[in-house]
Each structure stands twice: as C-alpha cells, then as structure tokens.
C-alpha cells in the first residue's frame, strides 16, 4: 500500500524479515490514513537499527545521537508546537542510553509520540543484552545469561503518570496500526512500546514467542484506573497489549512554557526582540 510518507530507498540497512519493516509500514499507513502532512511531521531518532526508521520515510528527520532523541524532540516541539513530533528508537536507545531522558520526558509531558521498538536485544552492536532482555538470556557478553532484572517501561511510565501508555506487537498489524493512530491522535506524551522480533540476534523472543506471549486487553479494561493499570503492567508471560494507561488530562510542556513566558503559540522563529523593553530594562541597572 502506498502512502504520502513513502520514500524510495535503494539501500536499507535492516536484515530481511526484520520486525522494523512492519513497524515502518504500520507507521506510514497510520500517519497517511490520519491525513497528516509530511511537511508538518518530524521524526527524531537516536542510534540503533530502529532509529534508522525516519531514513526510510518521507518526513522531516533529525537522526541524532544514541539515547538523545527525547530531549531533542522536546526542543523541536517547544520551538514549533504546530508540528507533529515523533521520537523513535529501540529499547537500548530509549531505555538504556536514554533512560534519564525517558523519565524526564514523561514528567514534562510534551505533546510527542515516543515509539520504542522493543526486541529485548541489541541489534546494531550484535546481540548483547538490552534493558528489556529477560533474565537468563544468553549473549556473547552475558555468557551465563542476563543476571539483572529487566526494565519495565510500562510500569515505569505509569508510575510517572505518563499521559498515555500503550503496548502493541509489530506482528499484529491491525492492533499495531490502531494503537499508533491512538498515539498520534493523543495530545500529550505517549509511550508506545512495540514488541518486535529480532530475527538475527534474539533466538529466544522470536515472532512465535511474542505471538504466544501477548494478549489483547478486553474492551472492559479501564485504562484510567491507575492502580489496576500498574498491576497489569507488572504481569508478564503473557503480556497484555493495548492502551494500558491514560492519565487525567494535563497541560503539555509547550503550552506551559508559553504561558509562563507570556508567549503566543507561534513558532519561535517568528518572535522578535523588543529592543525598547531591553533599553528600559537595562536602565534599571544604572
């Protein structure tokens, strides 16, 4: 299916059959079907295989440094609130190298969509443990198996009262696309953690493993019940997918900063220096 977000790519760095291909396709379709304009959409990414996603789309891109997509994306959004801003990367990028930024981005609540490709392994550096690798997972570095507790991004995000917390699975196209649309529609910070197999370096958490270990939340599930959502976030094997948590409505970073400094919603590049006020202010220092 062709979309307005397609880019002709001659050389794709992903392994054939990688889960990244489906996430890329779902994302482009979701953006297209929601009528978004590529010229008003920015994807900020870090480093890793997942972080290459915007290279293969027709969209504004800032492909920055490992772990740093979130602070950069918040800057982009604050400078121009009319843009749709996505911060995208893998589990190592967002939860490992960028862990501190992940926590702070949730707390700030800029209106950005944080897409995390979660394959429970490091791909680009060739198969070491990631923050979400399960205990006992053997790698060339963790030769006796991972001996640390896996990072739980969903529980972390709920504990910080993230505006919207979603988990989905790249192998479930309908679900993944629907969840991406909900994420894009939402005003405020959204975590959308997408389970995704790494066919080269993760022989444990395979496509079949994910398929067997996820289940969709029932329609009766109430994502606004925080305590219940937190309990759900702690469950594993199987893992629930869907909108796990939705916080009470809250102001976004870009709105708060403008309100605090009495600025209107225009992009920062249209703001002018008030030299009269500057002279007056400096006169107070005589």
């Amino acid at each position, binding site marked *: 299916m062709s979309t307005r977000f397609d880019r002709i790519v001659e050389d794709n*760095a992903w392994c054939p059959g990688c889960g990244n291909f489906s996430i890329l396709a779902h994302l482009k379709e979701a953006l297209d079907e929601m009528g978004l304009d*590529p*010229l*008003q959409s*920015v994807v*900020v990414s870090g*480093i890793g295989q997942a972080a*290459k996603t915007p*290279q293969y789309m*027709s*969209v*504004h*891109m*800032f*492909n*920055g*440094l490992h772990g*740093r997509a*979130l*602070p*950069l*994306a*918040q*800057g*982009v*959004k*604050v*400078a*121009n609130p*009319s*843009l749709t801003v996505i911060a995208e990367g893998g589990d190592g990028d967002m939860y490992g190298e960028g862990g*501190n*930024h992940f*926590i*702070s981005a949730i707390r*700030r609540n800029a209106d950005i969509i944080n897409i995390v490709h979660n394959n429970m392994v490091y791909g680009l550096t060739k198969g070491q443990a990631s923050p979400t690798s399960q205990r006992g997972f053997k790698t060339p570095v963790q030769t006796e198996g991972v001996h640390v507790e896996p990072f739980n991004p969903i529980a972390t995000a709920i504990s910080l009262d993230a505006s919207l917390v979603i988990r989905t699975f790249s192998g479930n196209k309908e679900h993944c696309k629907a969840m991406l649309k909900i994420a894009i529609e939402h005003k405020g910070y959204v975590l959308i953690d997408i389970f995704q197999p790494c066919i080269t370096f993760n022989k444990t958490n395979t496509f079949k493993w994910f398929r067997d270990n996820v289940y969709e939340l029932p329609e009766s599930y109430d994502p606004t019940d925080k305590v219940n959502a937190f309990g759900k976030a702690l469950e594993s094997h199987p893992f629930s997918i869907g909108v796990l948590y939705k916080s009470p409505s809250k102001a976004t*970073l870009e709105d708060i*900063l*403008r309100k*605090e*400094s*009495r*600025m209107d919603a225009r*992009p*920062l*590049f249209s*703001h*002018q*220096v*008030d*030299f*009269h*006020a*500057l*002279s007056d*202010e*400096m006169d107070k*220092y*005589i």
Partner: protein
Amino acid sequence: MKDSVSVLIGGSAGQGIASIETLLTKGFKRAGFYTFSTKEFMSRIRGGSNTTLIRISKRPVNAPVFGVDIFVPLDTDSYYHAKARIGQETFLIAKKGDFECDCTLYDHDLPALAKSIGSPIVSNTIAAALVFGLLGCDVGILKEIVTELYQDEILEMNLKALDIGAALAENNGQCRYCIEPNLSDSAANDLFLSGTEGVGFGSIAGGCNFISSYPMSPSTGVLTFLAKQSKNFGICVEQAEDEIAAFQMGLGVWYSGGRAITTTSGGGFALMGEGVSLSGITETPMVVYLAQRPGPATGLPTRSEQGDLELSIYSGHGEFPRIVLAPGDPRECFDLARRAFELADMYQVPVIILSDQYLADSYFHTEQFTINPEQPAQHIIKTDADYKRYSLSDNGISPRGVPGYGEGLVLVDSDEHTQEGLITESMSVRNEQNGKRLKKIELISEEAIVPEAEGEGEIIVLGWGSTKHIIQEAVERVGDERVSVIHFSWVHPLSESQLAPLREGKQIVVVENNATGQFAKLLRIHGIAIHAQILKSDGLPFFADELSEQLASALKEIR
C-alpha cells in the same frame, strides 16, 4: 590623599555580605565614585568564610587588588581568612581584643551596637554607614537606598543602624581615607553590570528565546537572569535533567527555528561534548555559555580559573568548525553574547561564550551605550520541494531550512550524509561533506576580532578573557614605557589578522589564570614565540597590585 580605596567585607554565608555590597556599591556610585566589586566564597549554603571587595576611585577601576585599605570582618574566621591582605596601613573595624594585628584598629563592637537597636543582623548596615562616612560620603544617600530596598520594621531598623554607623564615622574625626569624588558625575549615570548580566542582556539582544540548562556554579546566574526576564522578552525556560539533555533540547529548538542557549561550567560542558560534535556534523547552530571554575572534576566549585580554554576548543569527537569567544568585561559580555547568536545562525556552528567565576560575579562600571535595534538577521530560508539541507556551495554554507516552513523536507543526520541529509558510507560524499563543513573555517576566520594593541612598546603583555582590565591596571602601575597590551576576546579560530602583530619580533609575555598556559600553547602552535608567562591557578583571579609586581620582575629580565 589616595587615588583609590579598597574595602573588604568578610563574613560567613548568611551574614549579609551581599546586602552590604549592594548598599555600598549603589551608594558610592551615587556619590560620584567609580566603583568595582568582586567576591570570593566557599562552597557552602551557610557558614564558611567569604569576602567581598569593593574598590572606589575618581577614575575607572575595573580590577581587584590584594591589598586592603579598610577591612570589616563580620566574624573571626573571615579575619584569619583574609589576614594576608592586611598591612600596617589597613584600617580594621573590629572590637579590640578580638584580633591581633599590626594594623590600625578602629575599636567598635558592631554586633553589640546592632543588638542594642534590636537585631545583630543589622551590624552589616552599621558597617556600611561607617565605611561610607569614613570616606566622606553623605549617609543620606544610603538612607535613600535602604528606603528603596526595604519596608516597614526592617526599613526602620536599617535607618537606625545607618544613623549609628554615621555617628561612629563622625566621631572618628579624621578623614583618613577620604578621596575625591568625580565631580563630572558621569560615573553616576553608568550602568553597573556583572559579567552574568552582560551575557544575559546580550543573549536577549541576540534573539534568545529558549534556555535549557542544568544548574552549575558559576554559570547558573545567566540561567536565573533569563528566567527572571522570560516574561518580559518571551523566553521559554526549562531546567534539564542533565547537561546532555540541556544541549540536545537546545539543538532541537535551533533545528525547529528557535534561538537557544545552554549554560554550564567545565564539568557540565564535558558532558555536552557529544552534543557539540552533533552540532558540528549536523550543522545545527548552538550557543553555550561556559563559565569556568577550577577543575579537574569538582575542583574548586565556587572559584575562578581560565582552565577550560582547551576543553572548549577541543571537546567533541571529530573535526568541525566552532567559535570560542572570551569577553573581558560586562560590555564585551553583552556584545559577544549577542554576536554568538548571530555567528551560530550564520555559520551553523556551535559558539561558546567562555567566561569564568571572577567575571560572572564581579560588577563593573559600564558606560551607557545605544543598543542597535536591528532584529537578528533572518538566516532561515523558506524551502522549496527539492530542498537539500546539505547542498554543496562555494563557501561551505548550505542554506538552512526548518520543518514546517516551505515545501521541502529538512533531513538532518548525525551519520555522514548526502546533500539531501540521508545516511551514506560513500567515501566521495564523505570527502565532499567534510570538506564543505571545514571550509566554513575560512569564512569564520574573516570574522575574527582583531585585538587593538594599547601602546606601541616592543614588549607585548598579552591576555585573553576575564584578565583584560587586571592586566591593564597592572601595566599602568608598572609604568614601563616599553610595554604594549593586547587582549584577545576571540580565541578560536585564530586568524592571521590577529596573529600578524605578534610576528613582528616583539617580546611577548602571556598572562593567564591557569597552570599550563593554554593560550600560550595555542599561540606556539601558530608559530608565535613566547618570551615569558605569568600564570596563576590557586582558584583566585589575578590582583592588579600582585600582578604588577610579577610583571615588573618579568620585565626586568627583558632588556
């Protein structure tokens, strides 16, 4: 009659040294004196031993001195802390028996006097009035100032304290340290600015509309200054979770069309290294205010050093252009901070404003100046559909578009990239893009500020950044006609136009507030011979009197 007088107030944090500083500097300025103040303090919230030095003169004074004419220790510790600065001529205001010194004691128990009118806290106000009176100034001026600063009971208590202090001064009889004020009263109309305020105002003039920082002494002053001004000038202010994020947010803002600054000191700037490098390859402008303090690591957190010149020039992996500016006083802080935004935008490079604790925290008389009311030049272009962010150009500058303005996509990549901005491993494209970025250095060098030599002597005394006026006064004190002074405020990249005057066979003495002579090393890289170096790295700035002695003996060696 002396030409200038130095007053040292000592005490622990929380004793109100800052209030005396405000009161006396405002007071002396209104009385028609040129005034300068600087402070040194320990890394404590409360307690410790801190001093503020105030100099007053008929002529402009813009540098600290070591020797103290009048010393008011508000506690015993501060007396011992500053003991080396007291000489036989020093007038010590203290209670007899509290200290033993070979100086002139003016015996008064200020805390007891303060207590007698209700609160020991106002002993600093009594001290202020006493010092003010000893210098022949009218206490009415101080009353006017406290009336502006305080209200109700606090005002009343301070007014009483001023009367007590003024009476003590009167009873002293002799006007031992009276100096003539400047009758032309031009001093009273000057701005009285710190380096911090200079950078803050300059940033506003440069169009700064976003700041994100992680607090770190001695840079935090600019962060709080811009936060205070954010409503007046429309500046988004966000405290970052760390310096890494602070820099990245700033880059995001510039990418999206805003004008951002981040503020930090050496330790924080070390964390920003990867961001500086990212700014370099993505050609995203960025402005950093780096206020130096002595390292390595935590070093002396509240003190001063010019130890991070090399860090500012070499931080960040890879090879790419950047600009480092080192202002020498608040006026230069204003001009260079404003220019930093323009340079960053124009050349799409990181620009570092390199200051230090001494300059940040010192207050200087600054002549009023007219601010050029021209809006920042618009370097952002409206993109068309086939826009390429990194298009090749003769001068290395590719027109910069921003998302949402025009018909093109703005692709920016930390990987080596094509003209379009997409990842590539093509060696030929690498050479093209790397060459394009590095070519900008030629253009940037043409912008370099060429320092004006003061004097025509065959010995050049050379400094950079915050030492500007200290060196000037030290050279004046030495009075050696063979000497000319050169001050660099643009320290990277150095251009031949700046260096040529140093290649005329003159003897060069470099003065730096660091241990290894980092600027002298830079000059040597450019083939400049250095004859002598005067270095200081104990955590304090140079003092004009101390430096003049060091200079005199260095000059003796040169025949």
